[in-house]
């Protein structure tokens, strides 16, 4: 089968680039000039963190559907009251997001001013870290309170999911704490890139939002 171009290509004085979609007919694009414009690419850390958050979101979506199916599929689900400390922990985590945002904004002006004349925003990062650790400690206390009531991992499916969800969230949060430690260290050695700070902050805020979602889920279902 011949692939014939019935009309000969117009050979003009200006160069003709055979571009388009690279398809069979090799049609000439309207502009006729090669595409060499510099493309904007976001920093990889920014894309990377969205990718990671998508995966983490899918993990918790899978656990959510497991909870729904398990609860509705049998009659052995026993409701229990969530330990009150969880609500305090939530406030602590929300506060840590606020302090992180303050830190982020101040870092920009700090770095722009060449690290002189403005107070080192690292204190806000330390505050965020402290609140984060306080959250994890509070979660551990919640676990202790539950076990004091005789509710362990295998006691009832409702308690199983409580421990699984809170443990999974806490583990990811501890990862976020590691990221914050890294950001603080880099700030103190003046090697912090904006993309790193933004990505770490995005992760932390996601953990916040995720916790609020989990609290609602556990409050409604458990």
């Amino acid at each position, binding site marked *: 089968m011949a692939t014939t171009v019935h009309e000969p290509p117009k050979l003009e004085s200006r160069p003709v680039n055979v571009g388009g979609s690279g398809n069979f007919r090799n049609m000439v694009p309207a502009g006729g000039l*090669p595409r060499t414009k510099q493309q904007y690419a976001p920093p*990889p850390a920014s*894309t990377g963190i969205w990718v990671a958050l*998508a995966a983490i979101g899918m993990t918790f979506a899978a656990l959510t559907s497991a909870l729904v199916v398990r609860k509705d599929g049998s009659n052995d689900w026993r409701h229990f009251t969530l330990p009150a400390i969880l609500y305090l922990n939530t406030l602590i985590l929300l506060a840590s997001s606020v302090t992180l945002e303050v830190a982020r904004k101040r870092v920009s002006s700090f770095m722009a001013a060449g690290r002189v004349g403005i107070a080192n925003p690292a204190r806000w990062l330390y505050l965020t870290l402290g609140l984060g650790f306080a959250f994890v400690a509070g979660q551990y206390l919640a676990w202790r309170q539950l076990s004091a009531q005789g509710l362990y991992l295998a006691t009832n499916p409702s308690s199983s999911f409580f421990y699984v969800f809170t443990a999974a969230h806490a583990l990811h949060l501890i990862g976020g704490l590691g990221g914050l430690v890294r950001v603080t260290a880099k700030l103190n050695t003046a090697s912090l890139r904006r993309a790193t700070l933004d990505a770490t902050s995005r992760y932390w805020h996601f953990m916040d939002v995720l916790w609020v979602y989990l609290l609602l889920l556990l409050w409604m279902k458990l």
Partner: protein
Amino acid sequence: MHETAHAAHQAPTSFIRKHVFSLDHKVIGKQYYGLALVAVMVGMFLSWLMRIHLGWTNFAIPGLHLLSANGAPGNVMTPEYYLQLMTMHATIMVFFVLTTAPFAAFGNYFLPIQVGAEDMPFPRFNMMSFWVTLTAFIVLIASFFVSDGPTLGGWTQYAPLSAVGSVGGPGEGMGVVLWATSIAIFCMGQLLGSLNFITTTLDMRTKGMSMWRLPISSWGWFITSIMGLTAFAVLMPACILLILDHVAGTSFFVPSNLVINDQLQPHAGGSTLLWQHLFWFFGHPEVYIAIVPGMGIVSHVLVANMRRPMLSHRTLIYSFGALAVLSYMVYGHHMFVSGMNPVSSIVFSFPTLIITIPSTIVVLIWLGSLYGARLRINSASLFALGFISMFIAGGVSGFFLAQPSIDIMVHATYFVVGHFHMVMGVAAMFGIFAGTYFWFPKMYGRMMNETLGKVHFWFSFVGTYCIFMPFHYLGLAGNVRRYQAFVVDYMQPLIPLHRFITIAALVTGAAQLIFVFNLFYSRFKGAPAPANPWEATSLEWSTPSSPPPFDNFGGKLPVVYHDPYQYGVEGSTGDYVMQDSPEQIHSVRDEA
């Protein structure tokens, strides 16, 4: 020049940094390839043991008792050990060969080069992903050596058998825990890999490289990594819940009032269907993760050998995307007879039939592009053709399996086994072979032996048809799958066919040694390869050396001027123009 400071890392100096804990995506790709090579040898060996037992049930396989004294007393395989070997065969092949080689191995090596980058943006995560995957493999293999052997529940590990513990049979205690741990670790490795692939494709493309200028193989890896990100993120919590059922006494998957061996099981209230939903939500995208990179590689190889682009480059890529999106909606077709609401069967059957459309479009584009092209015949293009053949032959049975009314008859028979082995197993293997023969000159600077390659192809092509085509007949004749022997009257007449298949499998397996020999011989003694032996246009053929230098392009990143497949044009070096060549293309040459 494109800003890549955030991805740059120093050239390694020590042996450990160069060859062991390497940050270089090329080394990591080769490490994945090596892992897949070892895994496929183990998986193939297990299949030989299975096939021998199926043909000659009471045959004493010499030395088998050394592998397991309980599983093969007097070298005769017990029924349980058959199931254990079958489970490990499938798990190793699906995870450590079909997901690892076309995606992690070739993708890691060539995606950064094809987009024109120095390396992936997160080299330490990349290195971690390989070592995590290797750890998963070691944990899985370790289950061979625990007291009662590996798990016997199939790679699908259906509950409640997988969740009740050692009362369920040999390997159902520690074997399942090791299996689930291994797979959870594997998921972690793949998530780290997908992170790098997606970010590389979106953010690391060199100047002039728009998304539509990416080669089809890059699109294949990109789309696969998106699927991998979402699918493996679901399997991981499922495996963790399974482990908790084993070690923590929870009842996610074990129902109430279950009596095994006259013992009432202590668990209660769990949902066995929940495991199936979680598993197959991952499981169906997984089979597309196994095949889409192969589709990308084969398309890329074929275009270079046809000397013209595909009929429609964009439609091909849109179809890959459609396959990826639809793959999440069809998973219930694995569960038509599971006892779920029959209305769900219709809900899943419909998208399953719809997904045949992009699959067919892809096949028709391949066939339409090949028609009239004077395809250059070499080992790579032969395996690419073989891929298409296998994909069609194996895929057609999918049209039937998509319909619940037919599936009820052939579910859990050899019809299904034939379907997935051809469309996924063999086709993906042929894709791996095509990629190997095509890219070996770039990876090692030497050509593989063409004669041996062609012998390898013909043995593999004819052999795999001889093995897997009869499976469809066996299934329709009622041959149940996952049986270790056929003692029922209506299956006994099928045993001679099983014996034929076994012999074909052993011969085809032996022929793979030709490939392994070719691989290692050519690595050291192969003919030196020219810089661009296939006269191909994509960026991997623009690297200053073969193998490429540490930073891929010798410090000078390419600038892309053209679409990826400028073949059949008047180029300065032949009938092609490379992507990064600034020469203008003035005319289109007629193809006779």
